[in-house]
């Protein structure tokens, strides 16, 4: 691409008309739309169609129980509408008071379940329309909001959970908070609509960073602390890799961050112009440069992202279409300087470190496995109650990990026993004593809740994991670590494209089988078989795991073996 092209100020890639959501955003008066009118309509549990787009920017999705959709129609009733509310909790850190507040709200207004997400947020499900304001106000009372947790904005900023380097964790967490706040929309619509704030009389507020149309599509940011790539930094639109002084006199000091741009996992079945993409590593920056760089990356995407086609609107497509060199040049032009070259780093794992770990400052951290991030009270699993009891005595904080797990962090040595007893009493530790496969597996919510779902995911994960564990046992690989992720659609909520084995829903009972990611989040898997049912999946895996058991090198991961053995080749469709 020539420099003349680069010099054009704002050059939309296409002249097609803007997508319908762009029109809704434009008319929304700072994301207000007709949400108040929708909330006040007593004849329906739903909100108006245009408001279903806008409410996402306020951290909520309208959903309905898809299991009973047909039944309700037969009953001449509208679908059983309810809402999901997702918190903005940068780095997934919550105080015990905040935990208790969210837990109480889930009991009072939600489905009695707190869900820990793959982006370190809490989700409340099943909140009905008339309770939305009370729920948001309850969150606000605990100093939690859901602003920009969904929608075409910078969403919840992730940060490595890092239960060992306590001081570094705190520092990185603070940067996550700062980036999140810096990139927030400036509209007061959230306060007006949900918190009974004063009504704006004039035109909508200025949005100097996001613009009046906000971003073309969702935008995801994460900060990772090597060697643990728990946040899957290459899957983020905007990624920061913490670079820490390893040898110098200031050992452990945060020197700055490597910058990655243009990652993203969503795709659409049968549309090859959509694809998952790993981010490009483009340089190094000092901590004090971070907010300006983040803002500038967002503004480039704001100005160049495709607003005509939402399936082509993420930063990854802007970069794929224009080239990474164009992007670096544009960034340098806007910053007024070029970034330093990226510094060296290594990733060794994507997973969490389970159990008790002692931090550098002598305090203790317990990482619990929470299957599918679901904290509820079910027979034999009184997790909601158990964690409420823990929160009631806990002096430290809670951290949600990017793998939907939970760290009870900053426990003093003499409190460990008390926490342990509550963990044991409520069965919270049981999921740690299982195979590594099951312990690290991820699934998205999918049916019956998610409107995008094409096949089961969370509800299917346990039985499918059994199938794979059976194969591993059969081939003498009983306790082998292996990453397995299942999603109900190709949008990638559980980051399936970065798993050694991934199932991506196509239709009820049918999946695309993808194989061959590495185990550190730096190589995407590829399609191995498309649109197949469970027996075919099991047959395919049986053969491959059998070969792996016979032919693998020492410590060679399954995903790496498949490439070396030429089971997967580059020409395989991505």
């Amino acid at each position: 691409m020539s420099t003349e092209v680069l010099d054009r100020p704002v050059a939309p890639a296409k002249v097609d008309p803007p997508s319908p959501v762009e029109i809704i955003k434009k008319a929304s008066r700072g994301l207000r739309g007709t949400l108040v009118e929708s909330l006040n309509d007593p004849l329906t549990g739903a909100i108006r169609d245009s408001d279903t787009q806008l409410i996402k920017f306020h951290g909520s999705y309208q959903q309905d129980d898809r299991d009973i959709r047909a039944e309700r129609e037969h009953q001449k009733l509208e679908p059983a509408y309810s809402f999901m509310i997702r918190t903005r909790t940068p780095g997934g850190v919550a105080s015990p008071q905040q935990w208790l507040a969210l837990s109480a709200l889930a009991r009072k207004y939600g489905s009695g379940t707190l869900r820990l997400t793959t982006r370190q947020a809490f989700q409340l499900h099943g909140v009905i329309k008339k309770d939305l304001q009370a729920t948001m106000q309850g969150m606000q009372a605990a100093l939690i909001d859901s602003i920009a947790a969904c929608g075409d904005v910078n969403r919840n900023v992730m940060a490595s959970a890092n239960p060992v380097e306590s001081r570094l964790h705190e520092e990185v967490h603070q940067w996550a908070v700062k980036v999140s706040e810096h990139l927030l929309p400036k509209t007061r619509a959230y306060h007006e609509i949900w918190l009974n704030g004063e009504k704006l009389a004039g035109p909508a507020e200025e949005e100097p960073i996001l613009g009046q149309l906000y971003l073309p599509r969702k935008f995801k940011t994460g900060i990772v602390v090597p060697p643990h790539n728990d946040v899957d930094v290459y899957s983020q639109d905007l990624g920061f890799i913490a670079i820490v002084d390893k040898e110098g006199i200031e050992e452990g000091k945060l020197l700055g961050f490597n910058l990655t741009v243009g990652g993203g996992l969503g795709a659409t079945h049968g549309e090859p112009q959509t694809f998952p993409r790993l981010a490009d590593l483009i340089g190094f920056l000092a901590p004090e440069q971070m907010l300006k760089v983040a803002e500038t990356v967002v503004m480039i995407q704001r100005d160049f992202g495709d607003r005509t086609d939402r399936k082509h609107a993420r930063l990854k497509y802007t970069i794929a279409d224009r080239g990474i060199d164009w992007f670096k040049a544009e960034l340098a032009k806007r910053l007024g300087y070029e970034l330093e070259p990226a510094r060296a780093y290594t990733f060794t794992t994507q997973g969490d470190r389970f159990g008790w770990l002692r931090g550098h400052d002598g305090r203790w951290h317990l990482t619990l496995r929470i299957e599918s991030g679901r904290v509820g009270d079910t027979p034999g699993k009184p997790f909601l109650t158990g964690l409420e009891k823990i929160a009631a005595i806990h002096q430290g904080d809670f951290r949600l990990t990017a793998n939907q797990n939970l760290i009870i962090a900053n426990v003093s040595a003499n409190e460990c026993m008390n926490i342990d007893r509550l963990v044991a009493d409520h069965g919270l530790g049981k999921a740690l004593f299982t195979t590594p496969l099951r312990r690290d597996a991820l699934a998205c919510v999918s049916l019956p809740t998610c409107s995008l779902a094409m096949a089961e995911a969370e509800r299917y994960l346990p039985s499918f994991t059994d199938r794979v564990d059976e194969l591993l046992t059969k081939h003498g690989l009983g306790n082998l670590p292996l990453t397995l992720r299942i999603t109900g659609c190709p949008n990638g909520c559980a980051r399936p494209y970065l798993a050694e084995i991934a199932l991506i829903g196509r239709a009820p009972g049918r999946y695309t089988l993808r194989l061959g990611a590495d185990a550190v989040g730096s190589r995407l898997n590829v399609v191995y078989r498309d649109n197949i049912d469970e027996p075919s999946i099991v047959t395919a895996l049986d053969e491959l795991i059998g070969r792996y058991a016979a032919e693998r090198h020492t410590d060679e991961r399954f995903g790496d073996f498949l490439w070396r053995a030429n089971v997967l080749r580059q020409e395989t469709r991505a």
Partner: protein
Amino acid sequence: MSGAVILQGNFPIPEDRRDQLQQLATELNREQLMWLSGYFAGAAAAAPSSIPGFQANLLGGQARAQIASAAAPASAAFAPAAAAAAPLPTLTIISASHTGNGRKISEKLLAAVQALGMQARMIKAGDYQPREIAKEKLLYVVISTHGDGDPPDEARGLYEFLGTKRAPQLPELQYSVLSLGDTSYPKFCEAGRVIDERLAKLGAKRLLPRVDCDVDFERLAQSWADDALARAREFKEKHSPVGSVATGVAQTAAPVAATPELTRANPATAEVLANQRIVGRAALREVRHVELAFPGLGTLYKAGDALGIVHRNPEPAIDAVLKATKLDPAATVTHEGKTHTLLEWLRDERELTRIARPLLIQVAAQAKVDISELLANAPAMAKLTASCQVSDVLGSYPAEWTPAALVSALRPVTGRVYSIASSPAAVGDEAHLTVAVVGSDSDRKLLAGAASHFVVNTPVDSKVQVWIERNERFRVPADSSRDMIMVGPGTGIAPFRGFVQEREANGATGRNWLFFGGRSLYHDFLYQLEWQQALKRKSVHRVDVAFSRDQAEKIYVQHRIRQAGKDLFDWLSNGASFYVCGDASAMAPDVHAALLDVVREQGNMDADDAQSWVADLTADGRYLRDVY
């Protein structure tokens, strides 16, 4: 119309209009035709004539003046007032009942009286102008009692009028009351008793003692009718006939309908097209939507009518009675000319759920137990009738029964009817019902609800026996440009679904406003999708909902009525009709009180004026209720 008049001999009506008139004449009953004669006379007096001298030739000068002054207010009230100008016949029979039993008795009596050559008319209480009573000489009232001793809705205007200070003294009037009721209710035949006493208090002379009938009314009612006929003959012999309106006119103008009327004894067979639950999973009470059809059904009913289903008693209830009496279900019993096996009697012909006082007395007598103390204890009786069924009573008072004695002691099964939730204008030969499954919100699954349980267990494609109960009083506004306000919480929504279908199909221009109530938006909003779509199509213009359990405080339709007071009063002042359907014991009085409050507040009236305003609304036929 004046420009299009073509004189055809003595029939100065254009041909297409003539067809319409003849069509109309065949569809209306005698009272309606008589009323129309006054209506047209009033309208003629008010309209300019295109033919000089025509008007004067048609009507005598005096009658014209009377009609013109009555028509002057130019409101919906003018037409009945004009109709009242016609001289009254000698005998008036007022029929006031929900189920149609009263009407049938009245019609039979009317025919017998007319056979004597006597001037007589039968009028439904809803069509009767209370003030006309001052002019009556001989009056028979056939009236049923509902709910907590209430009169049927159509009679409420007359019933209340007679109790007010405005009621005239009636020294010239001779009368008798036939009262229909159900001994399973505490205030048995209360409405008949009250109207009888009110007439007596106003100075009218009781020609025959009042007769109170239970659900097996036929024999007692016949003996009252025989006596009433004899007294009418005596009356005729004493008085020379007065008045000039010949009943013969109406008789020739209203030919007997081609299709014989369906009754419980003469039902039609309908196919079940749909039978589906229409409340959500967490609803505390099951409600079902049922669609029935047979060729020609659409010509037999109008929106507002009710449909009865011939049901069979549930097997557990039959078994319980057989167990308590140790009788052989195969035993043959002949009773009142009919012969069936005991099983058939119990399954098809006898009431096994509701308990009536006479049954209790008979069962106790058979068992030789003295229950006079229980009978005198009203609260205990109320509790008993509300919580026990027939088999419980039989079990509590064990006795030696013969099959014949049992059949005789048990009451005949009563017809269960449901307001029709459709309009033939929209659904053709189908009729839709909205059936609440009685007992589904309590532990007493078997109690009552024999008919609704029968409906629940009637699968699609099966056949059921049905009949129609006409409800002429409860119709969409005759003037389709008038607005309509409908209050129908719970299954009270049913007729209004039919009303809205009818108005939409007929292109009515009046607005439709619905008040609905239930327990929760998510589970109990009956026909939610249809109302949402109707609002979008503008076939419904406003829907106010009250869901009692969706917030800490209980909110019902009457609260929404009060909240909407200003608009409601505007609509009513603008000529809207106000309809109420559903529960008679709590909802209807609460809605009535709310309506009075709205009228008082919005009309700046005192309580008495508001009462009169609402009474006028009733008298205008714009406050109509179908409550049970």
